[in-house]
């Protein structure tokens, strides 16, 4: 441990060094989630799936005639150092790319609610402002 490089004390947290990935609790994150705002103009639903060590994140965005499919092109699994009730859990960083827009997001569960924060960057020349949004989801079952 004394040989580990760091530039903040947090890098030396024992929980990071002992982590084997499998031991992190993903149960609270995986599954289907519905937006708490039924009239959202953002994401209506999110699905998080786990296959072994890999996670996938997909979503349905509110469209004019139904939903628009979102599928994360990359998902990073993160030990969530915000412990809840003393339990270690995970958070995810998920990136979506639509060509005209990129959304860099992070997802975590707080008190049973899935929270996603999206940093949206427009790559077209539409003049729209890059923007940040936050939305909340619950489990339908």
């Amino acid at each position, binding site marked *: 441990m004394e040989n*580990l*490089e760091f*530039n*903040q*004390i*947090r*890098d030396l*947290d024992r*929980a*990071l*060094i002992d*982590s084997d*990935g499998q031991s*992190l609790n993903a149960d609270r994150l995986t599954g289907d989630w519905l937006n708490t705002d039924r009239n959202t*103009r*953002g*994401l209506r639903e999110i699905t998080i799936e786990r296959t072994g060590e890999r996670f996938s994140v997909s979503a349905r*965005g*509110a*469209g*004019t005639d139904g939903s*628009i499919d*979102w599928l994360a092109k990359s998902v*990073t*699994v*993160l*030990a*969530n*150092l*915000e412990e809840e009730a003393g339990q270690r859990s995970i*958070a995810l*960083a998920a990136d*979506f790319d*639509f*060509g*005209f*827009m990129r*959304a*860099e997001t*992070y997802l*975590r569960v707080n008190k049973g609610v899935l929270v996603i*924060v999206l*940093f*949206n*960057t*427009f790559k*077209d020349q*539409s*003049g*729209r*402002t*890059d*923007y*940040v*949004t*936050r939305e909340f989801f619950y489990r339908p079952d």
Partner: protein
Amino acid sequence: MEFAQLYDRVELDSKAVGPMDLSPLPGVWLNSNPQTNGIARMVMSEAAGRLSLQVSAIGPDGLIDWGVAEVQAYGSTPTARAGAGFSCRFDFGFAESFLQGMIMKGLLVLAEIRTFKDESNRADYFVREYFALEHQRY
């Protein structure tokens, strides 16, 4: 206009289009938790319409200067003209920090996504902390 969610589908007022008002973001941001073992202090600066961020984190013998990174600013909607958030990346060789901040009720909520690039086998991690703008009015 392409969109991936209805939030993106907006009508732009051509008279309102112009540089973003970045004034909500610059200043000295202090971690609300004096016991933090991560980022303690951030200095956001603006020059020629561009933002940069200097970060200091807690080390064993005081603060460790991370240096300065370029910042991308975000509004709160696709038509907003005022800065409401930012992101930036620090690459230290052995690790990388991707910082994503948003201002809520005067507080800066900072998410740090820390990924290790060395062979230490440490878990990448996520942490979220609150920062207040030092204003020196009281």
